[in-house]
């Protein structure tokens, strides 16, 4: 499956090694361009990658696509200021450095210096697969068709969806001695299904992994089964009842409300619910949350962050007690100490949205664990994930009644500051005697996430890695039954 470099040389570079060589060449050129400009520091982040995708519509493959994209971002320090600029053409190298210098005039950050050479880097597992990097459209077509067959095996229709792979690589060089390069892969797919049985309902399921090809038939089957069950109309009880949020639903709320409130600069400015609460009980005592940028197979796993700071695990909540916040190097420079005087340093959370974004503090792989034990390794679950014997509409053991909500709409309308939310579950499954008996359309869930996290939780065993739909954050979490939510 090894691909050749296409005829155009760098027109569309189709293998990782060549991309790395190309990016290093660009990064070195940019660094050299900065040498003669009297800078106090310069850092270049050159990144590039190839995305291949195959889209499904109404049970057949509608289109296939392939995109190669690269660019570089330059951060410069000059006379106590920081400037950032980006470009996508080699010929813009010097212009780009000069533009960063121009912007450094308006962005003072006195005393800041670029992160030092990181030394020995930690090992990471499960983020790059040569097989995934080498996949082309021909490899994806059968996977897309498997997804469709999975949906159709349940009598539902594969309305829209797709499968895709990508590889990405970056080279980070700085005048402070940072020289880091890294590559990763991702393969995933999902489908939105509909089922008509008098009534119409919809289902959605997707799986993704850095290295392991999901069982796409199972992905389709789960989406199909969800739609089938959605047509069995049942009326559930209203008011404050137990709600099991599936990993997708829970991570959308956490990604809008919870993880941004742990960004150090916001917390230290008094902007978030967790401001001034380190060391205090802020959640149920069975809850442990940490950010683990070395999580095997995590979607933000790499040996360093995007500033070249070696990755390390940061405890956030331990047995319900708030333990700390997240910082990149600029934020740590702005806020050198915690209220108790403890010195702050980067927690390896300087991430970039791509070459065109300067680094900023962002959670990486948030492990949300409301159980007594350590979660299973995402890699051990491997290929079995989608077919691990759990039912499609899996109800955590111990849940007697209420609703199971796999997906929610409108999480981004929540009040991220207060934690108040009111979201819509297009299909909410009614649970009675510990199993799903039917579904209700368009149920509204309202509550306050920070309050719900203080109530006793019940966790499932269906651990999943979920990519952030509104941020770059990755979550690793199971279905969680949370209290304090009102169903309308």
């Amino acid at each position: 499956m090894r691909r050749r470099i296409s005829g155009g040389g760098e027109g569309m570079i189709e293998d990782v090694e060549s991309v790395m060589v190309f990016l290093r060449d660009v990064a070195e050129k940019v660094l050299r361009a900065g040498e003669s400009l009297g800078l106090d520091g310069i850092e270049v982040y050159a990144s590039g990658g190839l995305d291949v995708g195959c889209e499904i519509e109404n049970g057949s493959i509608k289109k296939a696509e392939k995109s190669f994209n690269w660019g570089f971002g330059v951060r410069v320090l000059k006379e106590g200021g920081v400037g950032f600029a980006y470009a996508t053409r080699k010929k813009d190298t010097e212009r780009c450095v000069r533009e960063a210098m121009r912007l450094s005039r308006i962005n003072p950050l006195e005393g800041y210096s670029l992160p030092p050479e990181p030394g020995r880097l930690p090992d990471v597992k499960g983020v790059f697969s040569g097989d995934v990097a080498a996949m082309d459209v021909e490899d994806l077509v059968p996977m897309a068709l498997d997804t469709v067959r999975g949906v159709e095996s349940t009598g539902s229709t594969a309305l829209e969806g797709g499968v895709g792979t990508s590889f990405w690589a970056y080279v980070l060089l700085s005048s402070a001695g940072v020289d880091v390069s890294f590559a990763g892969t991702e393969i995933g797919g999902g489908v939105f299904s509909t089922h008509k049985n008098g009534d119409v309902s919809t289902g959605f399921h997707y799986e993704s992994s850095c290295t392991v090809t999901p069982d796409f038939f199972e992905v389709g089957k789960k989406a199909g089964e969800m739609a089938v069950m959605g047509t069995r109309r049942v009326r559930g009880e209203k008011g404050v009842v137990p709600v099991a949020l599936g990993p997708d639903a829970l991570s959308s709320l956490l990604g809008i409300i919870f993880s941004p409130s742990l960004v150090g600069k916001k917390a230290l400015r008094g902007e978030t619910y967790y401001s001034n609460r380190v060391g205090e009980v802020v959640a149920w005592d069975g809850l442990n949350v940490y950010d683990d940028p070395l999580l095997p197979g995590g979607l933000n796993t790499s040996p360093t962050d995007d500033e070249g700071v070696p990755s390390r695990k940061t405890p956030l909540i331990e047995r319900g007690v708030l333990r700390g916040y997240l910082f990149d190097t600029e934020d740590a420079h702005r806020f050198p100490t915690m209220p108790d005087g403890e010195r702050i340093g980067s927690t390896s959370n300087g991430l970039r949205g791509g070459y065109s974004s300067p680094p900023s503090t962002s959670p990486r792989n948030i492990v949300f664990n409301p159980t007594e034990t350590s979660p299973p390794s995402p890699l051990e679950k491997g290929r079995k994930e989608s077919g691990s014997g759990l039912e499609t509409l899996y109800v955590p053991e111990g849940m007697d009644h209420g609703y199971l909500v796999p997906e929610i709409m409108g999480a981004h309308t929540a009040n991220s500051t207060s934690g108040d939310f009111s979201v819509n579950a297009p299909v909410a499954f009614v649970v009675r005697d510990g199993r799903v008996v039917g579904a209700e359309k368009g149920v509204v869930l309202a509550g306050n996430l920070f309050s719900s996290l203080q109530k006793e939780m019940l966790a499932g065993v269906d651990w999943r890695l979920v990519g952030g739909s509104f941020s770059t954050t990755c979550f690793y979490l199971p279905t969680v039954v949370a209290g304090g939510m009102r169903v309308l």
Partner: protein
Amino acid sequence: MSCYGDVDCTLLEFALKAAEKMGCSYADVRFGVSRGTVVEVKNGEVEKTASGVESGVGVRVLFGGVWGFASSNSEMDRERMQALVESAVKTARARESAGSEEKTDVAHGETGKGNVFWSVKKPPMDVSPEEKVSLVLEADRVAREDSVIKSVTTVYSDGVDATSVFSTHGDEVYSEVTRTVIQSHVIARDGELVTSYRFRIGGTMGFEIFDEEDPTSRARDAVESVKRILGAKSPPGGKMTVIADPRLTGVFIHEALGHASEGDLVSAGGSVLRGLLGKEIASPLVSVYDDPTLRGLFGSFPFDDEGTPSRKKTIIENGVLVGYLLDRESAHRLSLEPNGSARAQSYAHVPQVRMSNTYVGKGDMSFDELVEDIKIGIYALGTRGGEVNPTLGTFQFGAQESFLIEDGEVKEPLRDVAISGNILQTLKDIDGVGKDLVIGDPGFCGKGGQMVPVGDGGPHIRIRNVVVGGRG
């Protein structure tokens, strides 16, 4: 035709000829160059600045009734362009070889020709970084004058998008559109109570937009609003009558109707509006339009991303569904004419059917008339955004600020009102439309992983039987 900026038109023509030689029944090629600057200020300090330029090319082909697409942002010459077209054709062939039965095609619509520069009075590229920062710092300073305000984040951004679209239907268009926007997030805290308010000013304009709408006066309004919300109670949950202000009416119609009227969803069977053309789907008081030709508004554009000249579309006229938003493929599949609704986030994205500036037409009621016979209800203003499942017709959106209405009077403030409903039911439950049309609230709309700038608006409207959710 002549060529502008960095665009080498002969290369685009070459791509189309290459696609035709390879047997493609249709092809289009888009070359885009985007320049932009971002300045972020937090509590009086500049936190981030970035500036840059990106460019690239995307080739879309229809081969054997199947779409293929390839894009790259490497610098192009003939050899590389040939390789890119081959790559697009190869992706289409891979799918074709799988024996997939469904074939598609495109409808011929109006052909786009010409160069359109939407000139602005104060091009952001001519404004110094210092002047941009001082505008943002002033809005930030004003917002922080009140001691209840704990934090203010203000982000300014500007950009110029230059796009060329050439197609085998004969389209040859080049456009340059400038967008300038400022948005601010104000956080207030009083003891344990903490809440926030956002505002945004933006349009297809240059720096002159701030002469028309002053960020400092919006910042002052934001402070007043967030103070009201801070002391407000949660709304009573349940079904009630809601009056939406023009901003909320805009996001309501965007979510509750706009998405479901997108031709790609309709033709794929993914919209509740399929098969309802010519049917009464809303109250006769309601007319809805989508208009990308309104110069200055955030969601405007002169040509769509297939090269079709943009035009005003009527979606609902006096309650009757009269049109969908259509690109060339969905027009073919629905046997209708394309109306210039294909939009892509960038050259690297495949165009989808999207909205532009979507709004409810004005009615004849005053605000007092809308409110006077409401026994208990909610007056909801501004928006925190929304989302829709167009297949089921379920939608959800949030208001920024709201007030209780009791016995025909607007009373105390409420916090965090979110509204849910079903498209086909809710459109019929609109029983009052105001005469105070305001269009142009800027926003970003996401679909299929792509974000595009849009505008929304309308008059005040009154909706009966809306499910209101507050805090649990």
